[in-house]
């Protein structure tokens, strides 16, 4: 044994004798994880969060979260001697006078966009594969919480530099706050410490942005990952994969290497973006003063849908009992987002109620095998996309030579019309894909090879699928619709009332399937023809 190995052994032994770590490590380092590219979307979110922590810490060294007035005398001459807040001046200082400061600022902002984009993509993967089903409902809720907090955290970060664009964003946030009936104006006064913009808002949101929310993020992410660890990772169906096992590779060494490498790739992509593409050029926006605004003021994309909703809302207001209720802000700014996020959070429970399925699921669904859920997801995405388009209506208007009014009216109508159409089309597409699966299992793959039979008949040779492929295409469940109980034990008719009927109707929609080919059907076909 070499000397170095001996020392390492001694150290390991010392630690193990005192902590019993060896047993724990042995068990956990060999933990198996399944492998699929879509399982790495959450990793992207996690890694960009780590990048955000480090780049953000760097920025705090110079950022001065204060709204006191200063006169700029840094090296960006087009703003020389302009009066601005200390926050904006220090953000300019970071950009132009701190070595690597602009790169770090850009990395921080790109990582924030990537963080949100990765979380949304991860959420879509979880939704479309049914990974939120029992026992993972709690983790779904944590995930929804992380996305929601991510939007808030991103918005606060966008607001901190106190440039013209962020000030405009804060102004809209104030308007949304004020739109809350009765207490709105009090809440706004409370948040801003008086009238807008005041002198306390930037320092306040700074504390929330760098301390409170990152702390909550760390805690939630830890629980999120611990639950993945404890409940084990889901896997896509395939031969040898059951609800009771996990097929994949051990954490050590495969995933340690892969995840470690992937972290550096994510960091690399973020740094590349930060180095080559300008993001949030605050020096062009100028300092915020409430009297100014720029055409094409937009929030970051994760808030763009909200902006689009506000932009499309008709001017509705009511005055009652000395209070004004601004429905034009209240509905798009608070009520619709509230309904959307509540619906998203509750979906696992709604689906379980609809289908009556209370079993544990560790095998994922292929999206086509659950047409109703996939269609619902596509419908929600279509809704979001339509309102996101309206969020950028001014830029679309100028760049594609359209009128902003037409875009607004198009999205006002499309927001009601397009999602149902997308639902129907997606559901039909899923059923068609199921039919295609059934076809290929029963008749094999069309090879394009034509063979002439002795009797002169031409046939195309169909190649039979491998047993593994056949299994993968036919393993999914064939769910049964719930029946409405017509009478209960004492003979009372329709005991669950409308609720029961609704549930049965929804369950029926949910189980619409093309039957997977059975063993018998496959056998019957083996008798010669395809």
């Amino acid at each position, binding site marked *: 044994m070499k000397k170095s190995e001996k020392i390492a052994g001694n150290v390991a032994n010392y630690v193990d004798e005192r902590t019993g770590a060896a047993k724990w490590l042995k068990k956990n380092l060999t933990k198996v994880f399944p492998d699929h590219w879509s399982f790495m979307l959450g990793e992207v979110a996690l890694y960009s969060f780590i990048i955000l922590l480090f780049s953000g810490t760097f920025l705090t060294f110079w950022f001065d979260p204060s709204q006191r007035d200063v006169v700029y005398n840094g090296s960006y001459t087009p703003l020389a001697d302009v009066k601005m807040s200390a926050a904006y001046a220090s953000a300019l200082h970071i950009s132009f006078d701190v070595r690597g400061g602009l790169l770090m600022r850009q990395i921080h*902002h790109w990582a924030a966009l990537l963080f949100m984009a990765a979380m949304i993509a991860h959420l879509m993967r979880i939704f479309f594969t049914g990974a939120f089903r029992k026992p993972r409902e709690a983790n779904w809720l944590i995930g929804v919480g992380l996305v929601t907090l991510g939007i808030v955290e991103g918005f606060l970060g966008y607001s901190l530099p106190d440039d*013209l664009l962020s000030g405009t964003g804060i102004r809209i946030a104030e308007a949304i706050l004020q739109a809350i009936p009765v207490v709105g104006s009090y809440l706004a006064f409370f948040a801003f410490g008086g009238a807008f913009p005041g002198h306390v808002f930037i320092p306040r949101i700074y504390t929330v942005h760098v301390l409170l929310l990152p702390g909550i993020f760390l805690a939630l992410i830890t629980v999120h990952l611990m639950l993945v660890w404890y409940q084990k990772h889901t896997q896509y169906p395939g031969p040898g994969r059951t609800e009771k096992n996990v097929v994949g590779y051990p954490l050590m060494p495969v995933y340690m290497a892969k995840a470690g490498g992937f972290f550096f790739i994510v960091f690399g992509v973020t740094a590349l*973006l930060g180095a080559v593409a300008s993001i949030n050029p605050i020096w*062009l926006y100028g300092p915020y003063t409430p009297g100014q*605004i720029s055409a094409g003021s937009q929030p970051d994309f994760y808030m763009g849908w909200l902006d689009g909703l506000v932009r499309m809302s008709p001017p509705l207001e009511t005055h009652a009992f000395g209070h004004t209720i601004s429905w034009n802000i209240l509905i798009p700014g608070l009520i619709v987002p509230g309904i959307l996020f509540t619906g998203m959070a509750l979906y696992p429970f709604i689906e379980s109620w609809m289908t009556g399925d209370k079993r544990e699921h560790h095998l994922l669904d292929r999206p086509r095998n659950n047409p109703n859920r996939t269609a619902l997801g596509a419908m929600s995405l279509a809704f979001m996309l339509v309102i996101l388009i309206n969020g950028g209506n001014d830029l679309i208007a100028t760049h594609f030579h359209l009128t902003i009014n037409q875009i607004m009216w198009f999205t006002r109508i499309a927001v009601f019309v397009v999602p149902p159409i997308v639902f129907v089309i997606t559901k039909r597409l899923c059923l068609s894909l199921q039919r295609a699966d059934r076809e290929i299992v029963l008749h094999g793959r069309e090879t394009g090879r034509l063979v002439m039979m002795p009797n002169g008949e031409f046939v195309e040779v169909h190649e039979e699928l491998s047993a593994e492929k056949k299994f993968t295409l036919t393993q999914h469940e064939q769910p049964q619709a719930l029946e409405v109980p017509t009478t209960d034990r004492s003979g009372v008719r329709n005991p669950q009332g409308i609720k029961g009927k609704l549930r049965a109707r929804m369950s029926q929609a949910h189980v619409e399937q093309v039957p997977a080919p059975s063993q018998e059907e496959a056998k019957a076909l083996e008798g010669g023809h395809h």
Partner: protein
Amino acid sequence: MNFGINKLSRYRRHRFATPALMLVALIAVGSTFSVASALTANKETTQSAMSTQVAEGKSIFERGCSSCHGLNAEGSKIAPSLIGVGAASVDFQVGTGRMPMADMSQQAMRKTPKYNAEETAALAAYVASLAPGPDSVNEAAISWERDGNTAQGGELFRTNCAMCHNFAGQGGALTQGKYAPTLMGVDAKYIYEAMITGPQSMPIFNDKTITPAEKLSIIKWLKAAQSEPNLGGASLGRTGPVTEGLLAWVMGLGILIGIAVWLASKAR
């Protein structure tokens, strides 16, 4: 309100009513005539020197502009009257190619000018001869480089212009397909003329709202913004977060998903 009219109409059959009305009418006609003749008399002295230019402008106008603006520039259902718009307006509209319009769309677009500098000057002289209006601006005469203040211009621009032309002068959307055009690559004199004539949907910024010195500052800031290198890398159009979001999804997450697919397939 009615009371006043009633009170007035009570005197309509008063014996002094007709002479009083006559007097009012006479004063109105007389003073209008005297003001108008004074204006024309005033013009005649300056006109005599450049009457050939005016005549030339009139003939260009009749050929190129009168089908919409009317034979005497009095305007029509589809085009405004040009009486009193001044030389600055003509210089801006014709010099930037906006007039003559290519088609009757939401607003005149900037394009290659149809008339050369000489013809434009002649047109301007003709329109200016109809009634007084803001004079055209000589590019060499506006010394924005010497007299402008970039930082002050930026402040003025953000206060008065950015709400339509965007924070970096890239332009923006207005209602019903109208738009504020980009200010990049526009000659200083056209920026100046636009401010004093208020073309299309733009308001007029007269010398009391924004002083001539401040106008030069705005021009200087715009020129500085135009020549400023993209300090943070590719500018993405200087239009704000929409293009940034697009890039984050396509080049950020898009590339990472590609790498994830590659990593997952390598394991097998």
